[in-house]
């Protein structure tokens, strides 16, 4: 019954979405008063999808093997948390989660959005409804999560062991919230293009959604990077894998949008560009979902190729993005640009930021799809990997990071203050950093060295917006910006340290043998079998020391029975100045064990930086909400009027 109730809720929600979309046409054609009806429908639609998703969680929590999806992705012996997380660790469940977030976001817009004009809100809600409608159709026609199996099998096939990790409970929902949060920016942009009301009010209505989505994407990417680092056992934090790129591309677009939206909100400029970015950001989310779900590109996130689903998703993508682009092409000309600005100004700084981010986005997009294009045209097979991305996007990212230090110091419209003078101290610090790296580490590559220099410059320049005023009276949003920009410097320093100073040791060792890696002496003390709830493992005991004190690390190779898979569980010891990363592999016929050891100085800064960037976003969000509350009364007035 539970599964059937979920399915019924989905059908009802789909019907309501269709009705909501039709109401939008009615409202835009004639002046029928539909705002209240649309708001109510959007809220009920959101509640129904939420109900359907809750039903899916319930059948997974109860290990109801008569539901095909549970049978294929769960097992009664699994720990409870992975039973629940298994609900979205598969195609159908994750698509249901996607549409749930989409519909709930629509419901939130309907309940709280009162900053845009009424017609734009109606058009935006209509657009959100038609987005949801396509994905309901996809679920109901091509990937029903509630399909039954008869007779019910005795037990399930289990979840991919790589996904049996606390990270899974957290990582996909975070990314999905981010992806789909961008749908609101898309819908509002489409709505505003339909009504022509592209103004600073629209920007202010969009901003919390973009900011919220961007925070979650930042967290999701950072967490995903750390997950890949410790779970895949190869010590890398970013592989330029198509699926990783699929999450990076919406983030890059959202970062650009987050900055250009400020120009629109404050100065009424960059109208067409901001609308384009809002469309692109969610389009990139859909491209990412399509790439992941169709299995069209080879990836470590190996999902099966399914042409029917791929075609369906591609059709949705083409229709939505195509319609938005056509709308943009037709209506873009009618947009009048707002207040002008001079060559050296905050606006032009943000334009350069946007241009560089867009070029990096283009580079990542091209690199991800290039093999496909080449094979389509010449039949030649190739793959694009880290050497391309690092060499092309790396230098641009460094240039951008330098500008991140300078941009916030410029004032709106026209620069009157002596900014170069202000930058003397950061420049001095950067020069000192250069001198230190040349003296202490003469042999490192040019990119890591520049990374250190730029990180030092940005760390110093990034806090200047707080230095010139009383930092405790600065708006929370300014604090947010400073923290996020400082986070970029921190992450950059971590990447540079990892690239420059990582030491690696691969060896076959017998028990008792000692190996050197970086400053460490690691002894293989013992190898013993061990077992968990649904796996068995061999576990190595390593004694690591540098000077005084011994640290014990216990990496494992785990063997899962359902489905039969082998995973490496790295043992990682974190110190203030780096991480010791150890992996045990296969045994050698002569009785030795394959050991992989890395000493990674300051590698944790990469994720600490990512967390700081997200924290900066959260501070800015808090600041905006705080200001909204103080202005509460005037808003309440507006709402009363619009409901009356």
């Amino acid at each position, binding site marked *: 019954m539970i599964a059937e109730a979920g399915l019924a809720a989905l059908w009802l929600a789909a019907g309501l979405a269709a009705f909501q979309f039709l109401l939008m046409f009615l409202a835009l054609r004639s002046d029928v008063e539909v705002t209240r009806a649309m708001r109510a429908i959007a809220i009920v639609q959101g509640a129904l999808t939420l109900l359907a998703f809750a039903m899916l969680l319930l059948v997974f929590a109860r290990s109801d093997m008569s539901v095909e999806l549970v049978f294929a992705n769960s097992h009664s012996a699994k720990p409870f948390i992975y039973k629940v997380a298994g609900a979205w660790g598969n195609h159908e469940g994750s698509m249901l989660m996607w549409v749930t977030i989409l519909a709930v976001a629509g419901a939130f817009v309907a309940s709280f959005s009162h900053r845009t004009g009424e017609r734009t809100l109606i058009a935006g809600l209509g657009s959100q409804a038609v987005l949801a409608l396509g994905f309901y159709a996809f679920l109901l026609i091509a990937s029903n999560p509630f399909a039954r199996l008869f007779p019910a099998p005795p037990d399930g096939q289990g979840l991919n062991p790589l996904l049996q990790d606390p990270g899974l409970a957290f990582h996909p929902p975070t990314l999905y919230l981010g992806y789909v949060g961008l749908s609101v920016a898309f819908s509002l942009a489409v709505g505003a293009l339909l009504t022509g009301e592209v103004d600073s009010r629209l920007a202010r209505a969009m901003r919390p959604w973009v900011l919220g989505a961007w925070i979650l994407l930042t967290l999701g990417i950072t967490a995903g990077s750390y997950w890949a680092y410790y779970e895949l056992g190869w010590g890398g934090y970013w592989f330029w894998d198509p699926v990783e790129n699929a999450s990076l591309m919406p983030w890059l677009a959202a970062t650009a949008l987050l900055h250009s939206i400020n120009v629109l909100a404050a100065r009424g400029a960059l109208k067409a560009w901001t609308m384009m970015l809002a469309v692109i950001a969610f389009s990139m989310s859909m491209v990412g979902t399509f790439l992941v779900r169709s299995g069209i590109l080879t990836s470590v996130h190996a999902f099966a190729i399914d*042409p029917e689903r791929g*075609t369906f998703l591609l059709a949705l*993508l083409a229709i939505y993005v195509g319609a938005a682009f056509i709308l943009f092409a037709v209506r873009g000309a009618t947009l009048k640009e707002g207040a002008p600005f001079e060559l050296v100004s905050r606006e032009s700084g943000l334009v350069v930021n946007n241009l560089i981010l867009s070029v990096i986005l283009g580079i990542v997009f091209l690199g991800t799809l290039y093999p*496909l294009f080449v094979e389509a045209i010449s039949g030649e097979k190739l793959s694009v990997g880290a050497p391309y991305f690092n060499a092309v996007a790396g230098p641009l990212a460094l240039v951008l990071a330098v500008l991140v230090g300078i941009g916030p110091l410029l004032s709106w419209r026209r620069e009157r203050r002596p900014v170069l003078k202000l930058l003397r101290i950061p420049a001095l610090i950067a020069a000192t950093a250069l001198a230190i790296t040349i003296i202490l580490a003469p042999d490192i590559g040019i990119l890591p060295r520049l990374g250190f220099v730029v990180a030092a410059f940005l760390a110093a320049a990034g806090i200047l917006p707080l230095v010139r005023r009383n930092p405790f009276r600065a708006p929370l949003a300014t604090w947010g910006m400073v923290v996020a920009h400082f986070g970029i410097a921190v992450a950059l320093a971590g990447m540079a340290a990892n690239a420059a100073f990582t030491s690696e040791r691969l*060896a076959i060792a017998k028990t008792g043998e000692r190996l050197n890696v970086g400053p460490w002496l690691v002894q293989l003390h013992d190898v013993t079998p061990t077992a968990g709830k649904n796996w068995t493992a061999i576990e190595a005991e390593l004694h690591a020391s540098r000077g005084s004190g011994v640290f014990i690390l216990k990496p494992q190779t785990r063997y899962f029975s359902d489905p039969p898979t082998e995973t490496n569980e790295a043992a990682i010891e974190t110190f203030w100045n780096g991480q010791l990363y150890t992996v045990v592999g296969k045994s050698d016929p002569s009785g030795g064990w*394959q050991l992989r050891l890395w000493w990674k100085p300051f590698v944790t800064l990469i994720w600490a930086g990512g967390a700081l960037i997200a924290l900066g976003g959260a501070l800015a969000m808090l600041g905006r909400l705080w200001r909204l509350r103080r202005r509460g009364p005037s808003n309440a007035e507006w709402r009363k009027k619009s409901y009356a």
Partner: protein
Amino acid sequence: MSRSLRFAPLALLLLIVVALVWRLATPANTNVPSKLEGKPVPNFALPAALPSKPTLSSADLATGQPRVINIFASWCVPCVTEVKVLQELKVRGVAIEGIAVRDQSQDIAGFLARNGDPYERIGSDPQSRVQISLGSSGVPESFIVDGKGIIRYQHIGPIEQSDVPMILGKLEQAR
């Protein structure tokens, strides 16, 4: 904004959709043929992995005699079984050169002492640079190079006992 510029995103989208439709219609063949077969070995010069053996450079490969270049590592478990097959090839008169990837000389010495040593020369490739330039993505892999230094065959994974006749045949063709 000019009209053509406003329609540019739409044109780009169409292009991408066409490529994706093509891919959905023609599922990928994952069998990738080696790019380097028929091409000369890229130039390289590796230091000796062991003090007791000579260095290995691309110039050592164009000496008129076909040979096997084996990419291996002491930490690689399949290499242990492979090296015994390589010994057999050596007994049959095949010249075998080694490239030790991400390895250290004392580990290599131990590996050869335990499992036997079929190699004439062993170059040390600590950063996998030469391995990558050869288009090899894992260990073990082997290449058959003819007397002019042209790559004739790339073997991915260990050479097993059952591969010996095939390898000898390829070497004969390369002569």
